[in-house]
């Protein structure tokens, strides 16, 4: 097994199961079509990792943004009650259109609750821990940006989720493993003992995941640069520079520790590969990504153990001209 094979195998593990991706898309389309026919809805935008192609297994939710017509809701978009009003209104429309007992478009949603920015819609049993939800977020479009309600602050805030979608698409066009590699980085984040939001990894990837080298090299480079950035005390902020820090409560001290450990193992893996020590390379990548990363072959034709403990390499004295 080569390092490339190991990454290909791991990619399969990380990629969401195709049937659940299809189910997620079907649920997204249900909302798109139901709300798309509404008189006061200008468009329904798919958002979130599914829209960016960076979802990893398991899929927890799918996001849609319902862009309402400002003329139909003249009092929305200003500080005060209108943020909650918009969420309430959206929840009512979800029930009317898609409520499981008497929805006019389809009978699909068992429970809809609104949160800070969006209405969380349960299509599965709300008590099922594996249930995945559709988050329907009301919004207004102003100056090319989206204005979304924020119930807690009783205000509306600008955001530009389409910016991230477009940026990821651009990178993926430059390198067709970009989205898959972002899924791996999110997988890595989920494996850490401290809470690291998936979106934090996606935004770091925009800045630090190169698109011109192979997948192991790109991941190694990502951890080196991202670690440098976070070690400097920088925050991860909305790439559209509208919403500020992505995860204000993240423990940056812990994040640095996690990144540093990943960086050091990724460097060991990278160097092992450069020294043609495939077994050690795969082992160190396993230390980065956890138990689901493929194991190096247990034995080879060589009677020596497949993986020797990494010892310092003797220096070479070669003429340089």
């Amino acid at each position, binding site marked *: 097994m080569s390092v490339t094979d190991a990454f290909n195998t791991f990619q399969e593990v990380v990629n969401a199961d195709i049937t659940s991706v299809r189910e997620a898309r079907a649920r997204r389309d249900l909302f798109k079509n139901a709300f798309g026919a509404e008189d006061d809805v200008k468009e329904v935008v798919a958002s979130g990792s599914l829209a960016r192609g960076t979802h990893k297994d398991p899929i927890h939710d799918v996001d849609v943004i319902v862009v309402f017509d400002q003329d139909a809701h003249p009092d929305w978009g200003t500080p005060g009650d209108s943020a909650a009003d918009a969420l309430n209104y959206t929840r009512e429309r979800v029930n009317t259109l898609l409520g499981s007992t008497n929805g006019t478009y389809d009978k699909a949603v068992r429970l809809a609750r609104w949160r800070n920015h969006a209405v969380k819609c349960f299509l599965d049993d709300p008590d099922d821990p594996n249930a995945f939800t559709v988050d329907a977020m009301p919004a207004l479009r102003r100056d090319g940006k989206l204005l979304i309600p924020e119930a807690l602050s009783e205000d509306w805030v600008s955001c530009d989720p389409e910016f991230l979608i477009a940026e990821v698409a651009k990178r993926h066009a430059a390198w067709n493993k970009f989205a898959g590699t972002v899924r791996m980085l999110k997988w890595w984040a989920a494996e850490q003992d401290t809470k690291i939001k998936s979106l934090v990894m996606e935004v770091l990837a925009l800045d630090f995941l*190169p698109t011109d080298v192979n997948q192991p090299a790109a991941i190694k480079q990502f951890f080196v640069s991202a670690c440098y*950035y976070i070690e*400097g*005390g920088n925050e991860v902020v909305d790439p559209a520079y509208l919403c500020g820090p992505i995860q204000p409560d993240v423990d940056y001290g812990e994040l640095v520790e996690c990144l540093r450990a990943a960086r050091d193992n990724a460097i060991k893996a990278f160097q092992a590969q450069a020294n043609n020590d495939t077994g050690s390379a795969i082992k160190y990548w396993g230390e980065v990504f956890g138990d689901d990363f493929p194991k190096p072959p247990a034995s080879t034709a060589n009677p020596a153990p497949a993986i020797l403990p990494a010892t310092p390499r003797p220096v070479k004295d070669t003429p340089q001209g």
Partner: protein
Amino acid sequence: MPQHDPYIVVPRDAIDKIAASALSGGALVLRRVPADNMYVVRTVETAKDMRLPADIPGEYVALRSGDPHHAAQWIRVAANDAQIHHLFLSRRPQAFIEFAKFKEMVPGVSDPGNGLGIVITHDPDLPPELVEAGALEFAGWAVRRSGVHPIHIEVEPEVIGLEQLTGKWPIEQLAANSVMVVGCGSIGSAAAEALAGFGVGRVELLDPDRFLWHNMLRHALGTESVGRYKVAAMKDHLARRWPEQTVVAHQLDVVADAHYARPIVDRVDLVLCAADGIAPRRVVSHLARRANKPAILACVLDNGSIGEVIRLRPTPRFGCLLCLRQHLAAQGAMDAEADQELDYGTGRVHQPMAAVPPDLRQVGTFAAKVAVATLLESLHGDHTQRIPGEHAVIGLRPTGDLAAPFNVGEVGDVRWSSIPGPRPSCATCSAE
């Protein structure tokens, strides 16, 4: 081939002309450079009675000099034994072929009479196994009636310059990066040369001064540049040596012209400040932090006894130059700069520089290394370019009695430490 044998240099253009010729052989005109015992191909017969000069760019001064008109020949050989014989003979000093035998192997060779004939044989269809063994497409021969000896031919390679490092050093990545160098004095000129050598694609030089006699001792520039603006002369100097790099010259003073410097800081990836004086370093520290760019500051301290290279990062963890200086002053490691600054702008001349030229070059080169390492680690994820801290003190002529962190004791020692975070009251580090 013994060391005293002549040497044939074939410019790329001559190679191309021979390779493209439909003739099976023709005349060559070589130029002889006696001092270097070297023959340079200058004219190639490419078609019957058509002799074309081989192009040699003007900067190859030695290849364009010497005595003209040493007649020679080029002969295309079929896939026969000439090149492999050349290989074997080359490995046996004093070995040669009798002229008659050579003539059989290389038909068309002229009788040299009592003189020296020079022949270049060309085998365009050399089998790969012979190439592997070390045989060459072009081989040279010193032809005498007493015997034919192999001569070394040096063919101008297709790839010269930094491109030769493709795959071994991230030249493509660095070619996309840019650095602004503030101050083109002794340290700055060395730093600019080093940045070019590392392959940084664009360097913007900033300095208001002229290059004068007193600069010459410690500078990368020489007599040819006396009287010129330093930035313009450095631009020409670098263009000759590193043509792949873009150099932009700004005849500006970073303190007096800070408003012109600001947009330059905005468009580069990093600022390297080698300006002599405290005020310009403070201005660079401020401008770079506000532009969210890293800055590398390089200088010598204490009459050239130690070098100092500081990496300023515009992040919450690291303070600016003033924050560092105040911290060092507070712990008794550094004289308060306010006193030193009196020298500037009060009409008094600078203290005579005590540092020795190679020491200043070392500090400049070291600063460029730190700059390039910063670009490679932060922008390109290069784990071979990590730096152990933000503040380096380098022993040049260390007296050993300075306060920490300047207490290096030995020449060549590099002491790294970190730098403190921003002071709450700092005008540079606090949010805009």
